[in-house]
């Protein structure tokens, strides 16, 4: 017996007001001509981002082909050793930092708004800033190759090779400043993704119903938040060593090169999963469509994604098995490296089971996914091999590792990304790529890849080390190297064929997108600049399969927010677990400011590196002015206080405190901040533990009264900010902000005086240098507060701090309290360590 249930009423009734659609289109229209550069809509930024990342893929691929040409025959003189060093360093660096991370964020920025049913993610200007910073900084960084200034110390930049003594030129500085800067852009993207995924899902899209791809990106963004700070701290330390002669990594002055390896790989290993998990998320989204059946073990796969996130942070030291770490610590890491295979296997078995249960159509995405499974599983198996300590000691730094890492990264990321490009490209113009050309492209890529990289396992086992620019004929490596070179060019031919077809397809006229693969996720709803006409009410994990007629209803405006209520851009903020509508989130409009701020920041860092100080500072000032103008115009009183988003639902406009998306973004930024600080503290502890006596001879700490006085001043500043947060609309507010600023600055001056009187000299040995790094980091925060305090006062005096526009105050207060806590933690860490070591 079947029970008939009455279909639930739709949120908005028909007919819709006649001018509703026109107003919506006007609010979201993408500017044309040169003004396109002002666009901040994540869908547009996502396309630019994807295009730029693919450009870097091609450029780094050309570098790879140059390396393979050089290695094709023994004793080759095509490239000099110096040029080869720059080329392999740039190949790795560009592939990892300018292609792999950006393309996964780019695809997310492009796909997620539609997949989640949002008009846009919550901070479109931040996304635009992150994109332009990456594009401008990345292209300038790549151009260093043409001037012989490209970094040449390997993509993981180990000191002492990259220290001033062995790398006196600017090459290493470009890596440190350029990549550090691009990392910040990746973190900005991660904040956008976390807040977007948690707060802008369509009503009814609970965490359980959220697409697995969104889960993967949420996990990845959280990983970025905890992993990237380590490399930011590491690059800051190495640059400070090079610029100021603070000897963090110089062994004879109390430093330790292994410290760099810890910091680099604490970022570098999670990084592998930061690249792989988005691909895994895409695979989990594509496979059910290809098989025509829901994902098998969906919840187990989500659990496995979260488990991989945790496990991946315990694996950093498996890149350091030959660095002389203790046997027991290495054994722990070795065991954890094997354990991560379990949650990864859960995903692979889920995919196989889905394919098994469904009926597979061998389309282009299916081919590339099959290639992914084959290559990635092989890479995973060699991964388990190199997790075994004795094997790793033999294979370390040989071509076996080159083969392993390419099987993991190309298999685990490049093939799924190509599958994704085939799968999602029809979203742009409604045109699918040619299936016939796709088969050629796939077999060229798949065959070429295996011909290029499989022999490297053998070359490595025969003893060929990585990074040698040539080898003598008598080593017996020539045949294998020639095979690798031929394979690399075949692989490149496959990529070129894909590009040719992509360009050809994108030049065709626009046609209706429809749902060409019969997919179940929301990005296949009819979509324009404003995303979907109305925001769907989601009742299933596979809405397009389980909610018949959804596309037509959404297109007719029968769901939520079928127009613009405020006349501008807006979306619905929903609760993080149940996806219940909370408030109307008003979004910013297009603007030149993110582009100017990004160009200014990139110019500042890059020009400072080449000592063009005046122009660099001009760029820096332009960046600050653009950012302040941008901030000054945001957090304004909303034009309306309430918004009707359906027939029956009226939501408040904007939110305050912990209900606000900007509050959460600030908290996540502070978690990044705290992790960078923790990395500096780790450096201090690591260097201290190498000492026989702490503090080392000739160094001393200030008397306790100095940190206590500084702590009291910081606490007074935080107290003033707490009072300020309760003083909206009162005349005392700006004065409290200025008083808090005075306290913070005075606290830092007290710190400086204390360390100065104690005779802290960072150049004398690494221990003092690590304390100086911690104090400098606190100083950076005090500079930010010294700008934020007067800024708050100015906003208060100009009437821009009101009960309905108080996010600036709330978020600044958070930063203030964090700085206070950080100052206290700094003093505790610095003073407790010598006591613990007594």
């Amino acid at each position, binding site marked *: 017996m079947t029970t008939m249930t009455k279909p639930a009423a739709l949120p908005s009734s028909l007919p819709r007001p006649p001018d509703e659609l026109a107003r919506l289109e006007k609010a979201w229209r993408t500017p044309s001509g040169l003004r396109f550069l002002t666009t901040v809509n994540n869908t547009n930024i996502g396309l630019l981002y994807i295009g730029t990342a693919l450009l870097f893929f091609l450029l780094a691929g050309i570098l790879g082909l140059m390396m393979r040409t050089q290695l094709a025959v023994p004793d080759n003189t095509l490239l000099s050793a110096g040029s080869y060093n720059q080329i392999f360093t740039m190949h790795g660096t560009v592939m990892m930092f300018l292609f792999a991370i950006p393309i996964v964020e780019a695809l997310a920025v492009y796909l997620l708004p539609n997949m989640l049913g949002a008009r846009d993610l919550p901070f479109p200007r931040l996304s635009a800033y992150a994109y332009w910073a990456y594009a401008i900084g990345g292209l300038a960084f790549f151009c260093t190759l043409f001037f012989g200034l490209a970094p040449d110390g390997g993509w993981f930049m180990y000191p002492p090779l990259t220290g001033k003594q062995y790398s006196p030129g600017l090459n290493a500085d470009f890596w440190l400043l350029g990549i550090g800067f691009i990392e910040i852009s990746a973190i900005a993207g991660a904040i956008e993704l976390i807040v977007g995924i948690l707060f802008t899902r369509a009503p009814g899209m609970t965490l359980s119903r959220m697409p697995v791809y969104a889960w993967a990106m949420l996990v990845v963004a959280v990983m970025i938040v905890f992993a990237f700070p380590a490399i930011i701290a590491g690059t800051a330390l190495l640059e400070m060593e090079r610029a100021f002669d603070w000897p963090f990594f110089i062994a004879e002055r109390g430093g330790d090169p292994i410290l760099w390896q810890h910091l680099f790989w604490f970022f570098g290993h999670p990084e592998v999963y930061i690249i792989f998990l988005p691909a895994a998320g895409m695979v989990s989204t594509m496979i059910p469509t290809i098989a025509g059946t829901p994902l098998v073990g969906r919840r187990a796969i989500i659990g496995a994604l979260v488990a991989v996130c945790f496990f991946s942070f*315990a694996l950093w030291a498996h890149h350091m098995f030959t660095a002389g770490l203790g046997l027991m*610590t290495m054994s722990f890491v070795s065991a954890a490296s*094997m354990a991560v295979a*379990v949650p990864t296997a859960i995903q692979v078995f889920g995919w196989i089971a889905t394919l098994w249960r469904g009926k597979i159509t061998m389309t282009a995405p299916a081919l590339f996914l099959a290639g992914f499974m084959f290559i990635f599983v092989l890479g995973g198996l060699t991964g388990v091999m190199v997790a075994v300590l004795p094997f790793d000691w033999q294979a370390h730094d040989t071509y076996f590792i080159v083969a392993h890492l390419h099987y993991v990264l190309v298999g685990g990321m490049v093939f799924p990304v190509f599958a994704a490009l085939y799968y999602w490209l029809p979203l742009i113009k409604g045109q699918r790529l040619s299936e016939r050309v796709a088969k050629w492209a796939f077999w060229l890529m798949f065959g070429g890849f295996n011909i290029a990289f499989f022999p490297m396992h053998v070359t490595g086992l025969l003893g060929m080390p990585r990074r040698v620019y040539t080898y003598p004929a008598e080593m017996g490596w020539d045949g294998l190297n020639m095979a690798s070179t031929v394979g690399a060019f075949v692989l490149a031919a496959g990529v070129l064929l894909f590009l040719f077809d992509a360009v050809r397809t994108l030049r065709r006229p626009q046609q209706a997108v429809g749902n060409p693969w019969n997919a179940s996720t929301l990005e296949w709803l009819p979509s324009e600049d404003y995303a979907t006409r109305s925001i769907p009410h989601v009742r299933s994990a596979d809405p397009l399969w389980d909610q018949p007629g959804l596309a037509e209803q959404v297109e007719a405006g029968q769901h939520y927010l079928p127009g613009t209520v405020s006349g501008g851009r807006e979306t619905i903020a929903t609760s993080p*677990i149940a996806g219940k509508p909370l408030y109307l989130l008003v979004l910013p409009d297009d603007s030149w400011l993110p582009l100017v701020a990004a160009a200014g920041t990139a110019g500042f860092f890059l020009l400072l590196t080449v000592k063009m100080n005046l122009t660099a500072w001009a760029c820096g000032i332009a960046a600050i002015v653009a950012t302040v103008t941008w901030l000054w115009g945001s957090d304004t009183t909303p034009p309306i206080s309430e918004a009707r988003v359906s027939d029956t639902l009226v939501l408040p406009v904007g939110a305050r405190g912990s209900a606000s998306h900007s509050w959460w973004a600030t908290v996540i930024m502070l978690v990044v901040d705290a992790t960078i600080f923790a990395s500096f503290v780790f450096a201090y502890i690591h260097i201290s533990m190498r000492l026989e006596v702490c503090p080392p001879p000739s160094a001393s700490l200030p008397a306790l009264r100095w940190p206590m006085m500084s702590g009291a001043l910081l606490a007074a500043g935080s107290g003033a900010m707490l009072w300020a947060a309760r003083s909206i609309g009162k005349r005392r507010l700006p004065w409290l902000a200025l008083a808090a600023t005075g306290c913070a600055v005075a606290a830092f001056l007290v710190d400086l005086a204390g360390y100065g009187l104690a005779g802290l000299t960072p150049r004398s040995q690494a221990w003092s240098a690590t304390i100086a790094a911690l104090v400098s980091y606190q100083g950076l925060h005090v500079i930010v507060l010294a700008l934020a305090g007067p800024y708050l006062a100015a906003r208060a005096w100009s009437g821009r701090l009101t009960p309905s526009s108080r996010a600036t105050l709330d978020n600044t207060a958070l930063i203030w309290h964090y700085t206070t806590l950080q100052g206290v933690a700094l003093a505790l860490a610095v003073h407790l360590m010598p006591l613990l*070591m007594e």
Partner: protein
Amino acid sequence: MRERFLRKLIHGTLPLLVWAAHFAGSYVLVAAQCSPAGFAPGSPHRLPLALMTIVALAICAALAWRARRTLGGGDEHTALLDWAAALTALLAFAGIAWTSVPLWFVETCA
């Protein structure tokens, strides 16, 4: 937040947090005992590590026991984070047990 988001998030990932604490604790304890400043004859002492492992395994076992209904199949109304708590309790238990294997046969720092 009315949904108690953070609380539910911690509930869903608690077993993995236990795994992380156990791994970090083991690594730091051994690294400290094997550093130039902390080294003493007989380092690293394995008893505190073994005790830490037993406590961590007991916590994961208790979490898995608490989630036994979910592990037994649950139903369509079982919340995702409850599923995560159940599944990761098993994963974390296996992870801790496996990561601690070196304690049985590695005796010295070098």
